[in-house]
């Protein structure tokens, strides 16, 4: 096993453990936004789309690079936007309430 592969494997395993640990019991209210937020994070695949676009040198590869960039961009841009919209609905309410209280 090369040193590079071992390093990557170690990172992979430890990241899995972090993922299991960081996700203790979460309230049902937040499960849908959490899923959407996690969905946005795997949009990091967009970094990979840049990497392959830099290596493309003929049409089949350009087409694949285009597809990769398009798919990944939809995932990352859409994912963060919709998660923020969902979560914005939760914190808008107490904030509006606070303002109301301030006026009184």
């Amino acid at each position, binding site marked *: 096993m090369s040193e590079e592969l071992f390093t990557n494997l170690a990172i992979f395993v430890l990241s899995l453990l972090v993922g299991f640990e960081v996700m203790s019991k979460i309230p049902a209210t937040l499960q849908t936004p959490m*899923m959407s937020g996690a969905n946005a994070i795997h949009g990091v695949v967009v970094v990979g789309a840049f990497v*392959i676009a830099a290596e493309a040198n003929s049409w089949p590869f350009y087409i694949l690079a285009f597809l990769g960039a398009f798919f990944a961009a939809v995932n990352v841009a*859409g994912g963060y936007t919709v998660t923020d919209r969902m*979560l914005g609905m939760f914190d808008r309410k107490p904030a509006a*309430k606070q303002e109301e209280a301030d006026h009184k």
Partner: protein
Amino acid sequence: MSALQTVSSLIYLISAVCYVLGVHMMRSPKTARHGNGLSAVGMFLAVITIIVTIIVEGTIDSVGWIVLILGLALGILYGVVKARKVPMTDVPQLVSLFNAVGGGAAAVIGIFDYLLKGDGAALSLAFSLPVFLDVVIGGITFSGSLIATGKLSGKVPGKPITFPGARLLNIIVVIAILVSAWFMMASTTNVWYVILALAMSLIFGLLMTLPIGGADMPVVVSLLNAFTGLAVAFAGFVINNQVLIIAGALVGAAGTILTLQMADAMNRSVANILAGGFGTGDSDTSSAADAVPVDVKETSADDIGLQLAYAHNVMIVPGYGLAAAQAQHEVAELAKVLTDKGINVDYAIHPVAGRMPGHMNVLLADVNVPYEQMKQLDEANPMFENTDVSLVIGANDVTNPLARESGNEISGMPILDVDKSKSVVVIKRSMSTGYAGVQNPLFSMDNTQMFFSDAKKGLQDIVAATKQYLE
């Protein structure tokens, strides 16, 4: 390591920290939005880093730039417009769509790097194994998530789709995937090997998702979300990029835990869900065979209006039917009419009400229902004893008192104690059972009245009737 590699590795590390902290913060309602923001900052850092890296390395040619920028621009435009415009009822299928393209992108990266080696090149296992896993898992999530999107949006029938020989076909497809794995790992590159792996995994994704009922889709979407995380991590192995490995593995693991928690909240096991054939989703649309039993009392919008107008405490119990009929505006209007006249209105929200766990809170928040009126299960249950009228809208299993008894499909499921309130009005399209397929004795209780209607239309009529009595 060159200076560029050192700096970019360090920034990738910072962005990985942002994802972990972001997910951590998303566990609490107070910090959730900032958590998502922090994770977005991490993403921004990673993207800036890769832009600088490819400019400095200079291997990208002009056509490469054009396809990259065009793809990104179209993708961002499509993603952001969709995410901004989508009605809150349709969020689950949109998340599933975003998940599908994420898996697709991971598969594309694997295919690209495999083909780039050139025909007939010898491969090491350290390369071919991650490529295979990346392409297969990415392919499964791509087609599986698209079917899930279709089922949630009604473009694909929500009922479980099965056909004779499905099991045999499944076995054949799995064998074909293993054969493609053998070819990809044991011999030199050949474009057909990777096409076989991709095609079979796409078919497997379809076969896996089609037999699962619409009501179980949220859990499946969450599971496929975890799969995509893993596909992205393997793509990281393929292109030797650690931020993909970290973020992918993080989502893979966190998504798995989330899937288990969701299944738990719905009183289902993941294994049961994947076995399929259960849960018809929009079961309320089912046939006229669901005759109304004689012991059920029917009522009218006019009568409900009268009851509500003379009540002190009203509890609204929204369910899947309300989300499906997109009646959240009507229910908020009814609540406003009542609260304006000094009647106490609260919402009893079951954890799995709506189309996904927590989805009902999002829907109600969207139509400006005050946060303090939304009562979670533990808060709501003690309140039913003092409730004059419980208005159950398109909910069924979550109110079924049979859950307190043993020996049936929903035994032990946490329920809302609607039956303890003085009077219960159920708005429902028919007597059909909920997705657990169990009869609900609540409907034939002495203090229960049924109003057979679509949630949206029924609520409009009730609002009109109530106004008439309150003025």
